[in-house]
């Protein structure tokens, strides 16, 4: 626990306090930590354990059960490629392979510069426009292998010019 900075401790404590009147707040706390802190390492889990009285092993079990929770920091841009049925039959595998090839990382991995993470998703409910790719919440419809390069480049360019997407 000593490894957390004072700011991080304050942030996590504040998140825990948000739900102190809830009967079983763990999922909500972890979701907020994932969204706001970016990941949920063991030190953070220890703090949550101290605040909620839930054992670290149980929290760790929950974190590793749900695919949204991450033990390591994700990239600034999380490229979520849908591999659900509708997308799969429309070539989603090739699309994710192309992202992997261009970025040199596999699904679940993050580029060394911390910019991109590729996640394989299971249906994001945008099946009507399959194959769908979601980057930080923005959904790209009917993505083809040939578009992948431009999509990646648009984020890289924005990054270099300091623009916010």
């Amino acid at each position, binding site marked *: 626990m000593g490894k957390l900075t004072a700011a991080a401790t304050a942030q996590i404590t504040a998140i825990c306090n948000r739900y102190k009147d809830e009967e079983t707040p763990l999922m909500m706390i972890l979701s907020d930590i994932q969204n706001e802190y970016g990941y949920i390492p063991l030190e953070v889990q220890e703090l949550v354990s101290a605040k909620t009285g839930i054992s670290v092993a149980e929290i760790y079990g929950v974190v590793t059960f749900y695919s949204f929770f991450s033990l390591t920091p994700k990239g600034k841009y999380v490229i979520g490629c849908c591999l659900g049925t509708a997308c799969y039959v429309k070539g989603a595998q090739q699309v994710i392979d192309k992202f992997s090839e261009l970025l040199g990382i596999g699904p679940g991995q993050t580029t060394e510069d911390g910019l991109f993470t590729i996640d394989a998703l299971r249906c994001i*409910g945008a*099946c009507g426009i399959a194959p769908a790719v979601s980057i930080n919440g923005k959904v790209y419809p009917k993505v083809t292998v040939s578009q992948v390069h431009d999509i990646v480049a648009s984020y890289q360019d924005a990054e270099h010019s300091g623009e916010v997407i």
Partner: protein
Amino acid sequence: MISTREELTQSIESCTKALDAKFSGNDGKRHVVLCGGTGCLSNNSMEIKERFEEKLAELGLSNEVTVNIVGCFGFCSQGPFVKIYPEDTLYRLVKIEDVEEIIETDIVNHTVVYRLLYKDTATGQRVTKQEDINFYKKQRRVALHGCGEINPEDINEALGAGAFQGLSRALSMSRQEVIDEVLKSGIRGRGGAGFPSGRKWQFAYNVESDEKYVVCNGDEGDPGAFMDRSILEGNPLAVIEGMVIAGYAIGAKNGYFYVRAEYPIAVQRLRLAIRQARAEGLLGENILGTDFSFNCHLRLGAGAFVCGEETALLNSIEGKRGMPRPRPPFPAVKGLWGKPTIINNVETLACIPYILREGADKFAQVGTENSKGTKVFALGGKVNNVGLVEVPMGTTLRELIYDIGGGIPGGKKFKAIQTGGPSGGCLTEEFLDEPIDFDNLVAKGSMMGSGGAIVMDEDNCMVDVAKFYMEFICDESCGKCSPCRIGTKRMLEILTRITEGRGTMKDLDQLEELAKTVKTNSLCALGQTAANPVTSTLKHFRDEYIAHIRDKKCPAHVCKNLMEYVINKEKCVGCGLCAKGCPVNAIHKTDYVPEGHKLPSYTIDTSKCIKCGACISTCRMRAISKQ
């Protein structure tokens, strides 16, 4: 603030007038309506809306023309949609650049923009109105009521479309009468198993408890299905109303929505709708002046398919790993935090207001003997019209695929339709005229599931499809019980072996044995149905399995290890495009010049080829094929 049933009636009257005026043009205005569902938003419908507003302002038309967002039209593959009232003209595949033309041609000059109208796939004819499009013709909207028509972020539009009339009527009845009405409607759960909702409510009603809960299952994990998302995005108040009615019926004071975190727009609109309903007094203490109080709460999933299973969902709300619990005790007796709980699917709850508003008889008029009402399907895969369709139970597969879906693209041959997602099975040509309902699908070896319907054509390898679903199940198995945790892994190993050409005939027996074991021994329905895709493909497409095993061939040319890319040296004109695009330089020039050609043809070095498929699409001569 609406504090009595009378006030609600008045409110509904005035909202209905306003909404009608919009549709009919009685207000002397024109109305531009855009789809604000996930599919269309990703195709820039918000930007299109802004462009409309800008341009109309520039032209000083802001007072005569309004611009509105509504929920999903269902036909997402043709989105974004723009609809103009009162003419009811529907434009599809609209781009930001098209806005000026629409304003100039349609809004100002009252002429349709011909090129943006929907073009019928069969006849090539342009269609102006939504209702004349084949995709919509056979549909009947009960669960999707209001979707694509009303602004989901405005409670007044929902009221205009009849929201909370059902609740108002329910509150004038006794709890048991409400349950009887639901029983009478014959509605069965839309979330998967098709359990009669009235009976479920009755169980929970019968249990004495100081606290009970209603849970709405919005986890929608079946890949390829997105009806719950569209309902929550298009008319969240209908689901809220359904939940409140359920709460009243069983005697609950609190309800929980469990929605996937993958659905941010649905979550945001649901949250807004709850807030608006609360502000209007339609949630909270003493609803409509009665002594019934009810509150809604929202919980988000975190990426686990199994949490759609009701007991896993309860564990998840309770902050635990989403591992299913053994039953009994059933949730209706011991559910959320040990209290009696009913869990209903989003679509189920969305039908409830209709049943109470229009009456159980009207609901039960459509459908089949044991499956009443309508069902929303997410039609996807190899079919021309991809999207959400709501049809009466009993509609045949042929109507679904050909009349509504517009048939198979590219003149390919229909092979199978997978219903019920990873728990379902595939149905072949011979079943095309079967009416779709809960029991019939099960009798034919598949199931309704949540309504995913994926069409496959001759290019789909059924062994690969079975493997795809098994991979999904293996990833999503919670790992609690041994038959599912280990059995599905074993099945996946065998399927992988077969698709890689390492299978044996004995593997087929073993697959069947495993399928039986996993089905009978697993703890929850995920495992109990996990083998269905395997069982049904083994039954209908055994020859494809055998081709993989004996002949080491994938008849659909999908399984990479069992196919080769080949250049037809007579057809090849030697342009070299394919060679340039090959990522591993597997394509070389030969010294063979076919008759009548100037340049030597190319050939593929199969030992180098990684079967990426890039070359096949680059060749304009169609000289490359998979074999």
